[in-house]
């Protein structure tokens, strides 16, 4: 589904990704771990097309489509969802308003009929319920005044509404309390653990992986995948640290 080959990317003329390759097939869940500053978020942003993240080499395709030929909104319509490490606050713009527009823009790009107001609200209510988030919170301006954990939960609600093919979830577990961690973990499984979908979890800890069991675990260090393995690799890392395991 997602095929990244020898990806090189720079931020502010500083090379961050230095030849990263990774293939994620439909139905798989992958986890990326790695030290602070390794380039994990940069990978997500580069795939998402964030301005300022310059691809200097390599390729990335989603079901055969060259992602780097697409604008950020077109990548979303192609099925790419990015759960942000630091979700942005947007005063004056409500979740329901922008999500309905976004969902319908995606549908239009895929040649699907738009959702009516009623249909959208029903969908939003269902996904908010799945993440145990009060629907009233979705009527508020995007992330404004939300706690760190609420923002992460709202990211998952958005993922549920937009129903992507592949989700790259950047430290979704950070900021979540114990119950919220379980709810988000179960939410990710309910929304994304399907034969035609895939997930890339970026995390520092095993705790999320207890709920969302990965098929593969990778270590990203110095802008490259330096080690890959099964779920046991995460436990090994947690016990011994990056230096010992991925040296």
């Amino acid at each position, binding site marked *: 589904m997602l095929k990244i080959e020898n990806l090189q990317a720079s931020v502010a003329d500083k090379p961050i990704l230095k030849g990263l390759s990774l293939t994620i097939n439909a139905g798989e869940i992958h986890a990326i771990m790695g030290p602070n500053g390794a380039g994990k978020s940069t990978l997500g942003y580069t795939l998402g097309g964030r301005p300022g993240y310059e691809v200097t080499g390599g390729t990335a395709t989603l079901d055969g489509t060259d992602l780097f030929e697409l604008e950020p909104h077109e990548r979303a319509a192609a099925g790419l969802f990015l759960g942000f490490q630091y979700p942005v606050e947007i005063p004056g*713009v409500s979740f329901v308003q922008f999500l309905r527009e976004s969902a319908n823009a995606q549908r239009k790009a895929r040649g699907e009929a738009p959702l009516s107001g009623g249909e959208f609200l029903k969908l939003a209510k269902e996904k908010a319920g799945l993440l145990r988030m009060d629907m009233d919170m979705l009527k508020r301006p995007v992330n404004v005044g939300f706690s760190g954990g609420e923002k992460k939960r709202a990211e998952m609600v958005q993922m549920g509404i937009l129903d992507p093919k592949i989700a790259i979830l950047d430290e979704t577990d950070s900021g979540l309390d114990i119950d919220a961690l379980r709810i988000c973990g179960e939410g990710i499984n309910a929304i994304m653990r399907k034969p035609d979908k895939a997930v890339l979890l970026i995390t520092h800890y095993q705790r999320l992986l207890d709920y969302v069991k990965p098929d593969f675990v990778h270590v990203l260090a110095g802008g490259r995948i330096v080690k890959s393995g099964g779920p046991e690799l995460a436990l090994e890392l947690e016990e011994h640290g990056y230096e010992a395991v991925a040296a």
Partner: protein
Amino acid sequence: MSALPTRRQEAFRYADLAALEALWPLPVQEIRVAAGEQGASAVVLDGANDAAQDIAITLGDGAEYDLRLLNAGSAYGRILVKVTLGKGAKFHLGAAQIAGGEQTAEIVTEVVHAEPDAVSSQIVRSVLGGKATGTYLGRVVVARGAIGTDGEQSIRAMLLDRTATANARPELEIYADDVKCAHGCAVGELDQQSLFYLAQRGLPPADAKKLMLHAFIAEAFVGAAEEEALTEAALNALDAVL
């Protein structure tokens, strides 16, 4: 007041004098609100023709007035508002200016707190694209003895293009003690992080911009009697400059 002004006059510093000449002299629209009474009005300049308005508002003791302005669509649009507040009077201005191309839009205000305990608040939001110029010149005068005055100005402009110009000058002239006057003034561009966030969810850039500008402009019309109509007119004007 019948001679055509020059740029040496502060209130006409950024005016399009050639356009103004064709409109000159401007009849002054007088609005008087008696003590304890309330009033409200909205001025919408969204026609194709140049337009300039000169409004003078006098509020009696305890009177209240709510004025909303939408300055958009004309090659030259100018609105001058002079307000004099009596004791304990309240004045609120909510204004939006939307200009693109070679348009010039300006709002000039002079709010005089002549007596104690009056409250004035001004919110001005400008969206400027192309080579447009948007100006706000706002003077708040607190007369001698006008203690307990509360005057506020919140002035923000958003530049869609580097070629657009925003002039924002809130000014305070205070001759009394014990007054509370605050002004905030900012000229900026749309937040890139927010635009990327919206795009990542699937919103095309033009729609994302519009959504954010809509939110920005909407602040000018919150609580207005014609909030919906004004907002819609502003959105149409936005479409024209995006």
